[in-house]
């Protein structure tokens, strides 16, 4: 097992009664890196993410997060671990009856003894970091645009200063400029706050621009992982089609990388 792995998944099996989605999958996520997970639509990327954060039950295998085995740990220990990660859901999943600022304050209110003034200060600071102004912080989620919803959801994921952030398709549904800004934001925050980021994405630009390592999920297994150069050298047909397809070549050219 990798010494610096903050999340370590071993021989994970997850399935539904009539199909196996993840088949003895193993994956390590190292401290301080941004790991991008790619794979076909419906291929189990979100299932893997939801299994790691405990929303789906697994049939077999081990998941170790921040040194705590998710099966054998006591409930209090697990709850303590949950405080140390944040999740950005694909649709944002902001609570619609709270304002944006209250959404960010919500986890703090539940977990911390901070005074209301400090909570508000920190919430506004986090919203400021993701680029949401003080006026917009009093809006309700239904009044926010798609890009702002994602930003607000990221601020909420960061509310408790987590060590790990899970992002489920953070740039889907954003225009290329907004997606690029969001990528830059993730990178900046990762550096400023020292985050470990686990990102499920379809966005090749994100993969090139911000991910330190990429893991490719095909047929329920991680078939290749490593920096972009390793992935581009891989001869697996699915990986070739994904990274060296017509659309990809143009992205690569724009970014000054040549696929082999």
């Amino acid at each position, binding site marked *: 097992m990798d010494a610096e792995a903050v999340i370590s998944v071993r021989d994970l099996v997850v399935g539904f009664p009539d199909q196996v989605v993840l088949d003895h999958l193993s994956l390590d996520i190292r401290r301080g890196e941004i790991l991008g997970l790619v794979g076909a639509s419906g291929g189990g990327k979100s299932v893997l993410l939801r299994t790691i954060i405990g929303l789906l039950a697994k049939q077999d295998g081990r998941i170790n997060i921040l040194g705590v085995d998710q099966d054998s740990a006591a409930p209090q220990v697990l709850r303590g671990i949950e405080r140390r990660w944040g999740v950005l859901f694909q649709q944002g999943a902001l609570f619609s009856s709270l304002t944006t600022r209250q959404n960010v304050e919500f986890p703090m209110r539940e977990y911390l003894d901070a005074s209301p003034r400090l909570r508000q200060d920190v919430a506004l600071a986090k919203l400021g970091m993701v680029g949401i102004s003080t006026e917009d912080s009093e809006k309700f989620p239904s009044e926010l645009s798609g890009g702002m919803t994602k930003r607000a959801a990221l601020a909420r994921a960061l509310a408790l*200063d987590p060590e790990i952030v899970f992002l489920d398709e953070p740039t889907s549904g954003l225009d290329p400029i907004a997606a690029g800004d969001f990528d830059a934001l993730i990178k900046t925050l990762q550096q400023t706050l020292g985050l470990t980021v686990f990102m499920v994405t379809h966005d090749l630009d994100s993969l090139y621009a911000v991910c330190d390592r990429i893991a490719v999920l095909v047929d329920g297994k991680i078939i290749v992982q490593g920096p972009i150069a390793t992935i581009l050298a891989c001869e697996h047909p699915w990986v070739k089609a994904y990274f060296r397809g017509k659309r990809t070549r143009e992205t690569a050219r724009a970014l000054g990388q040549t696929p082999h």
Partner: protein
Amino acid sequence: MQPLRSAVRGDALDIILSGSWTSAHVAALEPLVEHALRDAQNRKIRVDLGGIAEIDTFGACLLERLLRAPPGAETPATNVPERMRGLLAEIDRVRGTAGLRVEKKTRLGGIEAIGRATVNAGADLVVFVEMLGRLGDALLRVLRDPRRLRPISVVYQLDRVGLRAVPIIFLITFLIGGIISQQGIFHFRKFGAGDYAVDLVGILVLREIGVLIVAIMVAGRSGSSYTAELGSMKMREEIDALYTMGLDPVEVLLLPRVIALVCALPALTFFGSISALFGGGLVEWFYAGMSPAIYIARLRDAVSVAHFEVGITKAPFMALVIGVVACAEGLRVKGSAESLGLQTTTSVVKSIFLVIVLDGLFAMFFAGIGM
């Protein structure tokens, strides 16, 4: 070691920080910071950050309070560890732009609330009339071109609000009929008029209670589900999708629902009234010992078709009110889950209120024409 130590040196307050400045410790740190700020009064503050082992956004926000005291002045921070610079600079940048919110307070809040409520009540009336107009318009279009009516939708809704409501309507009206009968017998007996409880049950059920109970049940059962359905369709932009396909949501969604309700409520009222008379008869039999044959004979003397007509005439109008309110409130749902709940509640409360008001108006009308 204390995470915050301070000492007065001449005209300045030296503050030395150490330890963990993270979210887990903010409860203890915040009073220390506030205390130091009170100690400082008008002195300059010098902050030494050298001893801080770890820091996160919470600690940085607290630090920023020290560094910004007094407001506007820059407080020199010394020995800033290299790894903290990025975070502190980021917090300084965003906090510099974040203004404090000013809460608007008005002294005449009560009067303002009354004014707003009055305006809102007026707006509600406009919404109701508008919805009635749009439904009327859609109905005219459908009457001119009957192929535009959606029979499957109407039948499906009839099944939902009519047929499936029958068991609960039967049960409730049966119990209400029995209760009225028992109360009538119990009180009329005191002056030897126990048999007149049959008149009470017959007239009350056929004219008022039957239709009223059924309408209230339907408002709570079907009106609320109409509002919730249409509201969630509105939230998920399904209504907008219909518009963009050139279809009128009023014609496609609302009209079949309202037609179904207007057809179902008179039928339910009829069944409900019969069930109430049946319940009343059973109580007469077991509680007062009046045989069913006598009950039916007395009922025939006490009520006429006119009483039944009075009750059943009101049913379609009440159904229209329930349907229009439910649809109008459904379309007023905005983006949030809370708004969906609020409009559903409003829909039920408003339609029950209007049903009772309508019943009062009908009572005056029928008294006026001598029925």
